[in-house]
């Protein structure tokens, strides 16, 4: 068995994989190389298992790599793989859903606290020139913060990230409500979360945070009407995907004072230019899509990916397969 690993995996994962085959580790992060076209075909010569994160596995690759049997894609959704072609060629595409759930949830809570405590202006005030007493006065009058305690946090989407956020903010004493048509009230109860319709959530929450995937149903989910439904003085957070919310409508809701603030890790154009309207607002915290960028994400994806590969090596059914129909007839 020959295993090519171009995704970033930890040493423990590589040790486990070496029990099942010859492993070549060429992490794209270290090599600064994304494989595609003839380079990918050459790299896949004789390879049976590809563990990837960013390489372009397009339709034209499959007929040129007849020994490839499995692709493990270290992403929640295998956007870099032609899934239809993989399915036609009988190749299971394994995924790692929730690999960055903890990282994104941590950032989301950081955003909530930073918004509630006016952290950005307060953290820079001591470095500003000027009278110390005046600064203190400003801090205690203009920047008195608020706690998460007894705030209502509205989560749009209760998947891996939404659940991780719910668990965190409940520890702060916040109430958690969520909108997710694919979750039952029983499942939500187990998380201490109350399910609401989207409109009810928007009207009740002090903080609204998006944690859903982009689909036809969710594209443009939060527009002008939805921002207007939010409570005056509410906070809005998007650490998920830019296509979920209308940036122009958000800008108007913030500029007009309807929303107290927003924190955004994702933008329609990334990175947004410095003169982007939202970046000119003092009540906006903006970061350059860092949600999943932690050292531990490598460990998370290593564990999820390798556990499923081991299942397949041992003749069991993997838990996370984007084209499960091929598993019924899968043979090494």
């Amino acid at each position, binding site marked *: 068995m020959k295993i090519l690993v171009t995704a970033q995996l930890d040493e423990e994962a590589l040790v486990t994989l070496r029990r099942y085959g010859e492993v070549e580790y060429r992490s794209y992060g270290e090599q600064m190389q994304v494989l*595609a076209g003839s380079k990918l075909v050459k790299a896949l010569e004789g390879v049976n298992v590809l563990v990837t994160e960013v390489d372009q596995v397009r339709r034209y690759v499959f007929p040129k790599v007849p020994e490839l049997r499995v692709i493990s894609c270290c992403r929640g959704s295998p956007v870099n793989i032609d899934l239809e072609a993989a399915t036609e060629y009988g190749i299971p595409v394994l995924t790692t859903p929730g690999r960055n759930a903890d990282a994104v949830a941590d950032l989301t809570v950081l955003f909530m606290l930073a918004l509630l405590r006016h952290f950005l202006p307060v953290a820079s005030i001591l470095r500003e020139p000027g009278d110390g007493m005046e600064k203190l006065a400003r801090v205690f009058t203009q920047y008195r913060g608020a706690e998460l305690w007894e705030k209502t946090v509205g989560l749009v989407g209760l998947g891996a990230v939404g659940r991780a956020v719910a668990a965190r903010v409940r520890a702060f004493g916040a109430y958690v409500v969520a909108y997710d048509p694919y979750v039952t009230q029983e499942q939500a109860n187990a998380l201490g979360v109350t399910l609401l319709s989207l409109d009810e959530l928007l009207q009740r929450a002090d903080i609204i945070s998006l944690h859903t995937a982009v689909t036809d149903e969710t594209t443009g989910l939060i527009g002008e009407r939805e921002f207007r439904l939010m409570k005056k003085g509410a906070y809005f957070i998007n650490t998920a995907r830019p296509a979920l919310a209308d940036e122009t409508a958000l800008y108007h809701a913030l500029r007009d004072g309807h929303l107290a603030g927003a924190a955004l890790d994702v933008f329609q154009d990334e990175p947004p230019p410095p003169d982007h309207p939202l970046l000119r607002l003092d009540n906006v915290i903006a970061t350059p899509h860092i949600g999943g960028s932690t050292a531990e994400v490598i460990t998370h994806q290593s564990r999820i990916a390798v556990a499923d590969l081991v299942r397949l090596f041992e003749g069991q059914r993997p838990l996370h397969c984007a084209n499960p129909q091929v598993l019924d007839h899968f043979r090494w």
Partner: protein
Amino acid sequence: MPAFQTAEEFKQVLAKMAELMQSDAALIQASKGKNLTLSYEFPDMDVFFYTSFLDGKVEAGLGELEESDAQLTMDSDIFDGMFTGKVNAAKAAMKGDLAFSGNVAAAMRLQSLMDDFKRIYLQARSEAGK
């Protein structure tokens, strides 16, 4: 609908682009002090292309190079979209639609010439009847 139906159509545009690049005053001026060769692969069309900026001289053409400073791989639609304003290069790279290897930082320095590349590409497209 794909920008090009056949590899021949795409090659015609690239050949015209190469011809225009080599005599473009703005690119020749910009190439001064640079020594950088980029190679492009378009696997959907099985087409290769290259551009070289050689201290006051610009070379470009169809074909696969043995060596280059940076290598870019993308489908022809992505390449076309980047120069016709339909595709954001940074987004394409983040989505994995644009793969790279080699000295990517050096290649990124050509970003300042993007407007010239767009102008030349659109002219090449037009002259090739696309």
